[in-house]
């Protein structure tokens, strides 16, 4: 009798633990399944997708990927979109990090009139919803010849990322040791030379974490791309995903290809997340003020 009562008591005592485990496992399935389904479906034939939605792909077909990459059945080869997205993301990051680094450094070090006011200004721009900008942007980017241009997109994305990247960079440079730059200045470096040759290389950790915070939203951005890129040849991946909209699931035969496009768009960010998950989550906690 006694051992049995013991077990009942111990089950009751562990009940919250079991409940918690059930909750966690349930939610993990809810979160993971659609993502697995996306990748799994991308390597199936359309027949399999409709007739055996739960089954594992058999045989595993990479044909969907090859077809979309080369541009069969979709107007433009997917490789073009992939290249466009890569160029725009990397270019935006380069401009953003350079400009924000200089500005953050200036705000952290310089004791000039207007420093505090400039910071207030940057804080205010954080509160501007970007939707408000799209209509005038559409017209004057056209006037400047920056519509349907990679450079134009890079400048826009870099600008949108500036306010909070500057604020974070400034916070970082406040704790940066002065001795390093001062010895460079004594050696005859200019301020800019000291920044490029001494400060920036030593700060590559901080600069990398700024890149990490910004890369995912730039890669995924849809609204400005929709407005400013209306020619097929310059379009980015989110546009390719959003524009892929065949009628209904039954009447078409390109399902697998759509899933291949979605998977290819998500994949770089997933790889990136696998590699840097600690830094990404930490960065998001800091970047939450965005």
């Amino acid at each position, binding site marked *: 009798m006694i051992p049995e009562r013991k077990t009942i008591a111990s089950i009751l005592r562990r009940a919250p633990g079991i409940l918690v485990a059930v909750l966690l496992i349930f939610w993990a399935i809810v979160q993971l399944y659609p993502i697995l389904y996306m990748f799994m479906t991308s390597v199936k034939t359309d027949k399999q997708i409709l007739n055996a939605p739960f089954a594992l792909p058999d045989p595993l077909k990479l044909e969907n990927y090859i077809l979309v990459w080369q541009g069969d059945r979709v107007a433009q080869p997917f490789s073009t979109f992939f290249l466009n997205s890569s160029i725009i993301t990397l270019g935006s990051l380069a401009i953003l990090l350079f400009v924000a680094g200089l500005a953050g450094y200036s705000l952290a070090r*310089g004791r000039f009139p207007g420093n505090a006011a400039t910071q*207030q200004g940057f804080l205010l721009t*954080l509160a501007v919803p970007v*939707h408000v900008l799209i209509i005038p942007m559409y017209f004057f980017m056209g006037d400047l010849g920056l519509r349907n241009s990679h450079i134009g997109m890079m400048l826009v994305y870099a600008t949108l990322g500036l306010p909070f990247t500057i604020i974070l960079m400034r916070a970082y440079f406040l704790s940066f040791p002065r001795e390093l730059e001062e010895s460079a200045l004594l050696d005859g470096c200019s301020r*800019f030379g000291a920044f490029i040759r001494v400060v920036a290389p030593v700060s590559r950790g901080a600069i990398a974490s700024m890149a990490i915070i910004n890369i995912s939203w730039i890669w995924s951005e849809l*609204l400005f791309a929709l407005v400013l890129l209306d020619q097929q040849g310059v379009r980015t991946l989110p546009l390719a995903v959003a524009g892929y909209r065949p009628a209904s699931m039954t009447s078409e035969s390109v399902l697998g290809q759509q899933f291949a496009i*979605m998977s290819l768009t998500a994949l770089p960010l997933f790889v990136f997340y696998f590699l840097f998950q600690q830094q990404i*989550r930490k960065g998001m906690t800091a970047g939450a003020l965005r």
Partner: protein
Amino acid sequence: MDFRRNLIWYLFLAPAVIMLLMFMALPLIQSLELAFFEWNGLRPREYVALENFEDLFDDRFFWGALRHTLIFAVFSTVGTVGIGLLLAMAISRRVRGAALYRFIFYLPVMLPMAVTAALWVRMYEQNFGMLNVMLRSIGLAHLEGTWIASRETALGSVIAVAVWQFSGFPMIILLAGIESIPEDLHEAASLDGINEAQRIRYLTLPLIRPVLISISVLQFIFSLKVFDLVWVMTLGGPAESTSVLGTFLYKEAFRKQEYGYASAVAVVMFAVIFTVTYVYQRLMRVEAVEF
């Protein structure tokens, strides 16, 4: 002399300031200006004073979009923060596999929103979409729905996707908050013979309250700006039942070429979101100046 010594700092600041003036301040001002004109993008624009705003406040589709935006923002905030809190508290019990759960729950946040939306369009599809297929195969066929295809359920279905994608975000932040509670407080609590429910009620929740409030406000502001999810999933339909301010603005401007009218929508959006964000920054006293 002073200025010359400071010149280099101004030069360092210049690219950032120029870019923000050109691609943020200038379009913002032009947007405010355009709201007082009627313009189709081609003919010379015509000054109409407050007419755009008067029309806007008589436009039931505008009120619909505003209502849907607020519903979306409130429910997706409650959903993501609520689930995020639950998950954070569960993980903080040092369950086995905590690192794995943390990894999985943040994974959907990394998905580009356009991909999430396109994926869920497929999941929600009536005949072959996984949601209905699954309900059928576990004998719950009576729960099958039309989801984003019918007016009654469309907005709710879109909100559910937002909660699915973003609950990992508040989770990470709240978890950081919970883990920063000093260990000796927990020890003192357990010495006092407090049970778990009491510990959550009197220790954990009060201590993470500031984080909870700030993540809720951030999530709310973020949700007010919803565009991608709605645009890719429903384009605001069916019958405008998921139309939000972002998609309403986009359609008025780039589908109907009513640039002045759409700018009036932009001004309203700006007023709402800027005010909420500004008040939040003031309340949180986001430090900007230290010397």
